[in-house]
């Protein structure tokens, strides 16, 4: 029994490593095929992201929204409701934060008041939006995936409408909102690394979600409902309302992610399409196996390969699109739980056989 568990956890690591190796091998093969100078490109792809403090900082900055979006998806994933509305929430919450901050600007409130207020606005936005697919799932058994994807287009148009008709700055040549008050613009930290102070928000979020998942009754409820909803019902938990609340909580974190991105990187809201962050959050949650503690690692990894692609793109003859291919392979191999399961079962079988023989020898 003990051995079985060891083999299971060992194979989990091996599986992810083999997945990564295969993905890199494919990437290298493609590079060798399409590049004039593959060795240089490979070097750039693997080491490029670490070649300057600025680039390392960019990895971390990119990992910040990935982390918070990943946490958001952990809630959905934990209760097995693939509510993908995080994508829309990310955009709408950035939009709402901008709008509310512009409306509050005349009051000249200090940062210590404004930033928390903005985060609350973002969370309320997230909860309100994810309420729609969640309630439709609960009351009408409407598929959350379909509803949330459709809702994302609605939200995109809504955010664009707010931008165009409620807060457009007509004095600039492009489509953008009025400038946000300085009190909500988060500073950069660590000198030449130029890391966003949103990092602290992300760290706090990870700690809060990890505690929520593993130390509180609600986290236990969510995990039980996700693992076996019929069992959860039979021991007296309300599977329906728990997964409903989990979706709202996930929405709140997607809201925080959008607000953090807005306050850290922009002085005007200027998105007219959604930003893929919500879907990246899903990738991160899958990579982290819905464990909030592992979410930052998944997020950093995703950010690292994205920056690698950017570096290759600017310094060589390779289009960024190729990174999508590698990404796809990695996610596929990491998410495919049965990958290498044959090897795993063989190992378990051998271990069991060995144990039996040992027992027999002992008996003899």
């Amino acid at each position, binding site marked *: 029994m003990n051995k079985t568990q060891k083999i299971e956890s060992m194979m989990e690591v091996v599986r992810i490593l083999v997945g990564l190796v295969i993905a890199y091998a494919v990437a290298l093969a493609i590079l060798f095929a399409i590049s004039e100078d593959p060795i240089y490109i490979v070097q750039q792809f693997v080491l490029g992201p670490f070649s300057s403090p600025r680039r390392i900082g960019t990895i971390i900055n990119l990992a910040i929204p990935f982390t918070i979006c990943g946490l958001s998806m952990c809630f959905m994933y934990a209760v097995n409701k693939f509510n993908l509305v995080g994508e829309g929430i990310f955009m709408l919450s950035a939009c709402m934060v901008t709008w509310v901050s512009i409306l509050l600007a005349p009051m000249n409130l200090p940062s210590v008041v404004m930033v928390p207020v903005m985060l609350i606005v973002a969370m309320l936005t997230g909860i309100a939006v994810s309420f729609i697919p969640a309630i439709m799932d609960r009351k009408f058994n409407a598929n959350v995936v379909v509803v949330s994807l459709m809702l994302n287009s609605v939200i995109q148009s809504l955010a664009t409408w707010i931008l165009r008709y409620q807060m457009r700055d007509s004095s600039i040549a492009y489509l953008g909102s009025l400038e946000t008050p300085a009190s909500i613009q988060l500073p950069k930290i660590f000198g030449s690394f130029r890391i966003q102070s949103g990092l602290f928000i992300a760290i706090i979020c990870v700690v809060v979600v990890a505690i929520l998942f593993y130390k509180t009754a609600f986290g236990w409820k969510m995990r039980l409902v996700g*693992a*076996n909803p019929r069992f959860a019902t039979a021991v007296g938990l309300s599977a329906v309302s728990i997964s409903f609340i989990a979706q709202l909580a996930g929405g709140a974190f997607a809201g925080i992610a959008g607000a953090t991105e807005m306050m850290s990187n922009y002085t005007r809201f200027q998105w007219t399409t959604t930003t893929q962050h919500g879907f990246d959050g899903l990738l991160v949650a899958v990579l982290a196996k819905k464990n909030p503690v592992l979410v930052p690692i998944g997020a950093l990894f995703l950010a690292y390969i994205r920056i690698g692609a950017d570096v290759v793109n600017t310094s060589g003859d390779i289009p960024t699109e190729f990174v999508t291919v590698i990404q796809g392979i990695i996610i596929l191999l990491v998410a495919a739980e049965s990958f290498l399961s044959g090897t795993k079962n063989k190992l378990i079988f051998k271990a069991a056989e060995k144990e039996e023989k040992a027992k027999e020898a002992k008996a003899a």
Partner: protein
Amino acid sequence: MAEVMRMQDITKIYPNGFVANKDITFAVGEHEIHALVGENGAGKTTLMKILFGMEAPQEGKIFINGKEEKIANPLDAIAKGIGMVHQHFMLVPSLTVAENVTLGAEPMKNGLFDFDGAVKATQEIADKYNFNVDALQKVSDLSVGQMQKVEILKALYKGAKLLILDEPTAVLTPQETEELFEQLFKLRDSGVSIIFISHKLEEVMRICSKVTVLRHGRCMGSMDIAGLNEAAISKLMVGRDVVLKIDKEAPKLGKPVVEIQNVVKINSIGKNVLDNVNFTIHEGEVVGIAGVEGNGQTELSEVLAGLSSFASGDIKLNGQSIKGKTVREIRDQGMAYIAEDRMVEGVAGDMSIKMNIVADRFTKPDFKKGMFMDAKKINDIADQYIKDFEILCDSKDQPVRMLSGGNIQKVVVAREFTSGANFILACQPTRGIDVGTAEMIRKTIVKKSREEGTATLLISADLNEVLECSDRLLVMRKGKIAAAFPKANEVSEETLGEYMLGVKEMTQEEMEGLL
């Protein structure tokens, strides 16, 4: 009369060591409706799966029309003239009757599916055997009885000469059953042999000419129906392999704990799956429910556990009605529930042993410390129960799915026996687990009733278990209580079998005072 099919000395042992069939010989003649009867788990389904090519036996031969054949898979079986109608229909609801019937052997025209040809062919067979179905109708618009006809047509279209019907009347109304029998007679007369699997002895007596009885994977004999009666068949079907004994003193009955009053539950097709059920369980007694599976036991347990609702009547637990209450409320009122299928409702396999043990109680205030869970208290409880119930594991943090069946069931009972409830609803508590664990669970059930005054409802397909653990014994059939006995260990298997299979039924007066 020539034999169309003969299975000779079939032995099938599953990888987990379960002997499903042992040296079974079974032959079907021409123009014959042959009944295959036996309790759940007697090996009927396995035997038919072997005949239909879905399972490979370890030993034995199969002869079709006197010639030895190997049946590799269901397609092979169909090619050899064997057709099977499964208990759960295998139809595509969004397609028409004709499309379903011809699926797999479609008539073609110019390399494309010939829909008109399919309709024509289907209608021809349907008319030939007097099957009143419209080939152009969509399957989703049909009644259950008509769907079954489509299933039979499917087999006939593919040229079946031997038709296996697995409990065909279980889903039918009495009128539909009559109609089905008429058609079976017609099929028999036109040269199709039929294997009729059923628990309903009156049907077997009515339509079959021969019967083969299986018990615990062994063949108890094949006989002509003429000259047999239902009691004789039931005696062969129901019996115990090894008689198990549990020593227990007479129960000291206290106040009523569970009062079930005129409970009726109607399922989605309008059948009364619980039909005016009435009985009471007192403090300190174990009430057993025996019965062929599918006679309302599952529905009764779901209703009692608060997992499904009922149409009328009332259930009181410790004096309060449970009607419309949530599972949480019913559990707080004093119910503990050992679910029929432990992997579905008994545990969350991916979660730790610890979480599974406290799953029913961690939300309560005494498991909290401020905002958080009281980790120390939970760990202590888990360690204690792992020790008390001798759960073999590495640690309390191990996922439950890594344990053996018996140890998983120990996790379930560790939770349910310690929940503080005074009513334990135990459904198939020892199904598929090792002898040692089964004994521990049975003894604990009896011990709790004697020492703590727990009221227990034991629903089990294991005759040993219901006869030995229970004080009072009830038999369920067709959603009703068909019999009641004051002392379970004095009931003979023969008598029990007769009531389980509907050979006899007690009147309300006979059961007076025993419910």
